[in-house]
C-alpha cells in the first residue's frame, strides 16, 4: 500500500504502533488488530501508551513521526524485497511484516553501523519508556488505571500521599566479611 499523504493518520498510527509493539510486544486489542502482532498475552508498549508519549511535543519526536512513518515503511518494503516476502498491500509495509521479520528489521535499523540509528534508537527508547515508567501520564494516574507496564514489572505502589516509603527494607544482619584493609572511616585503603 502506498501511504496517502493526505490521510496519513491511521496508517501512520498503525506503523508507529507496530514498531512500539516490536520493542515491547503485547496482545491484540481485537482479532482484526494488524498493528499489534499479538506475540505476547499481556499489554505491551502500545497498550502502555507509546503513541501518546511519542506524540507529546515535549518528547522531541512528535514532529519526526511523519518522516519516521514513511522511512520505516520504505525500509520494510526493501526488507521484504530482499527476503522474497510478499506483503499484504492493505496495510503499511512494516505492519504487514510478520513479527519475527519486524524484529529482524528493527535490529538492523538500531545496529551501531546504521546511518539512521539515532532516530530508531530514540523511537525504541520512548516505546520502552512508555512501558516501564508511563512517562506520558502521572505515576499516580498510571497506577490507578492499572498501567500494563507498571503492572508487568510489579511496581510497588506508593502510600496514599503519592510518596513511596518502605519501612521494612533490610535483612538486618552482616552478610559478608568486609575487605581486610578497610580504613577506620570505612574506606578503601
Amino acid at each position: 500500500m502506498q501511504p496517502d499523504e493526505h490521510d496519513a493518520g491511521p496508517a501512520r498510527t498503525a506503523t508507529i504502533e507496530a514498531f512500539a509493539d516490536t520493542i515491547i510486544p503485547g496482545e491484540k486489542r481485537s482479532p482484526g488488530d494488524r498493528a499489534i502482532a499479538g506475540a505476547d498475552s499481556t499489554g505491551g508498549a502500545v497498550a502502555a501508551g507509546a503513541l501518546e508519549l511519542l506524540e507529546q511535543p515535549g518528547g522531541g519526536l512528535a514532529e519526526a513521526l511523519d518522516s519516521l512513518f514513511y522511512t520505516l515503511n520504505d525500509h520494510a518494503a526493501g526488507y521484504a524485497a530482499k527476503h522474497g516476502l510478499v506483503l499484504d498491500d492493505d496495510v503499511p509495509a512494516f505492519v504487514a511484516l510478520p513479527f519475527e521479520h519486524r524484529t529482524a528489521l528493527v535490529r538492523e535499523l538500531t545496529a551501531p553501523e546504521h546511518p539512521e540509528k539515532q532516530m530508531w534508537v530514540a523511537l525504541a527508547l520512548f516505546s520502552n519508556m512508555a512501558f516501564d515508567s508511563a512517562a506520558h501520564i502521572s505515576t499516580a494516574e498510571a497506577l490507578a488505571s492499572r498501567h500494563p507496564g507498571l503492572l508487568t514489572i510489579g511496581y510497588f505502589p506508593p502510600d496514599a500521599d503519592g510518596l513511596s516509603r518502605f519501612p521494612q527494607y533490610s535483612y538486618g544482619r552482616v552478610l559478608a566479611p568486609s575487605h581486610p584493609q578497610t580504613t577506620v572511616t570505612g574506606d578503601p585503603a
Partner: protein
Amino acid sequence: MTTATESTDVVVIGSGFGGAIAAYHFAAGGARVVVLERGPWLKAEEFEHDYKLGSSYTRVFDFVVGDGMSVLSGNCVGGGSVVYFATMPRAPRFVFERHGSIGRRMWPASISRDNLDPWYDRVAEALPVTRQSWDRVPYAGGLFAAACAHAGRTANPPPAAVDLDECVNCNWMMAGCRFDAKRSLLLNYLPAALAHGAGIRPLHEVQQLTRNDDGGYRVHYRIIDDEDYRILHESGAIDAKLVVLAAGAGATPVILQRSEAALGPMPHAVGRYFSGNGERLNTAVFDEDRVREVLGLSRPGGHAYAAYQIGRGPTVASWDRLDGRLPEYERFSLEQLYFPPGLGTILAQAPGAADPSWFGLPKKEMLRRWQSWLTIFTMSEDDNEGVFGPPPETGNAHRLSMQMLGDGPLRYRPTPNTWRGWSLADAEVKDILERDGLARVAPWTNDLVGAYTVHPLASCRIGDDPATSALDDRHELRGHPGIFVTDGSAVPGALTVNPALTIAALAERAMPGMVRAAQERGVAVRYGAPAPGAGTAARVATAQTA
C-alpha cells in the same frame, strides 16, 4: 564599553560540588559571589515521586548521548549532589599513582591519597559522610553481599552522605530527595554560601567567557525557559575578577571551546582525556528459590528477595579488586545499584537470550521479573579516550526533548585497555552471581547509546605536564590566569570508585590558592571559614560512625 555591565568579584559557573564549595568559601571569606546555574532550583517539597515527562524527575538531570559515550549528569541547583546516590568512598591509594595513557604519573606530584585525606575529612565533616552499618543495608545490598560471601569475596557498605534517620528507602534519590535525608549541597554548602551573601541564579546557562581590559572576565549567559529547556530567552553578562568554572565534565570544556575565539588558544587538554570512570553495568535476574536455598535469605511477606525497588541506590560494594599490586586496567570495584525505570531498563540485555536481547519477547520476560533484578555497577580504569568535537550553538548538547534528553559532541572509542577491565569485571560479576544457579546476568548493551557514565571526569584536568593537562595543580587554566576549574573535569582520570567525594576534596584543596589568586586581583577576601554547619555536622557524623 558603551553599556554598564553588572560586575562582581567572583562568578561561579555551576552549583554542584566544585561550584558550591567555591561559592561558600569565597562568600564566607568576604568576596562578592554570583553563582550561575543552568538548571532549575528545586526544594525538597518539589521533588515528586513521578516519572511523568515534565516532573522534577526529568527536570533535574540530563542524559546527553554522544558518539560512543552517553553522560548522565545533574541539571539543577546543587548539580550532581541532587541526583547522586550519595555513595562517598575515598579513592584507593593506587589511583593517585596511575599512569593511564601518558606513560607517567597522571596526577600532579603534589597530590597523593595521604595529602588529600585531610581534605576528604573536611568534606566528610561538612555533608556529613558517615560509615554505614550492616543492620541498615537494604535488601538489594544484602543480596549482593550474601552472593559475594558465598563466592568467597568480601563486601562493604561504603560510606554515604545519607541521614538514615530520615531515609524511607524509597529509591527515588535520582530525582532529588523528598525527605532531605540525602545530604545534597542544598543542605550545607549552598545555604551557607547564601547566608554569607552569595547569589544563586538558576536557569542561567553560561555560553562563553571573554576577557576584559582589566584582566578580569565577562561571563556571557542565556536564560533557559523554566519548562522547555530547548527555548532560550534573553542573554546577559556579568564581569568578574575571577571565574570558577564548575559546569561539570560534560559542559566545562564546551564552554571553554566556545570561548577560544575571544580568549585565545586553549590548552591541548581542554575537551580531551575525558574519562567515563571506566563505568559499565550488568543486570542480573535472580531465581528467588535459589536465593532462599543457597543464601538463606528471606524477608517479611514470604519473599526471599523481590525487592529491587526498595532501598537507596548503591549500599554495598566489593573492593577485592582494588588491589594496587594488580596491573593497571585490571582494578575495579563492583557496587550493587538500583536504576529507576524510565532509563534504567532499556539498555539491560536479557541474559542468555539470542540477539536481539535488549528488546522484544525475551526482554519482556525479563521485565516480568523486574523486582528480582540486581544491577551491578563496575567502576574501572579507562584510558581517558573521550574527545569533545566542535561545541553546539548553545549549551553542551542539542536538546531533543524539552528536558533530560539531548545529543552532544563527545566521541569515545574504548581502547583494548578499557575493554580488558570491563571484560574482567563482567567475568567477575558472572562468577559471583551465577554461582549455584543464583541468577543469570548480562552486561548492558553499548550498541544503542555507546558506553555510558554517571561520573564524567577529566575533560579539563589537573596535572604537571602542560601537554596533557589543562590545569596546573592549583586548578588554574594554563595560559588564562584567573580562570579556575574545580569540577569533575579537573580529576585526572578514572578513580575505580564513586568520584563525588574526590571531586569535592579537590575543590576544598584548591580553595586556599584560589583565595590567594582573588586577593592578588584586588578582592577583599580571606580563607579559613569552618565547615558549613560545623557546629553540629561533625558531632553528628562522629555519633553515627561511633
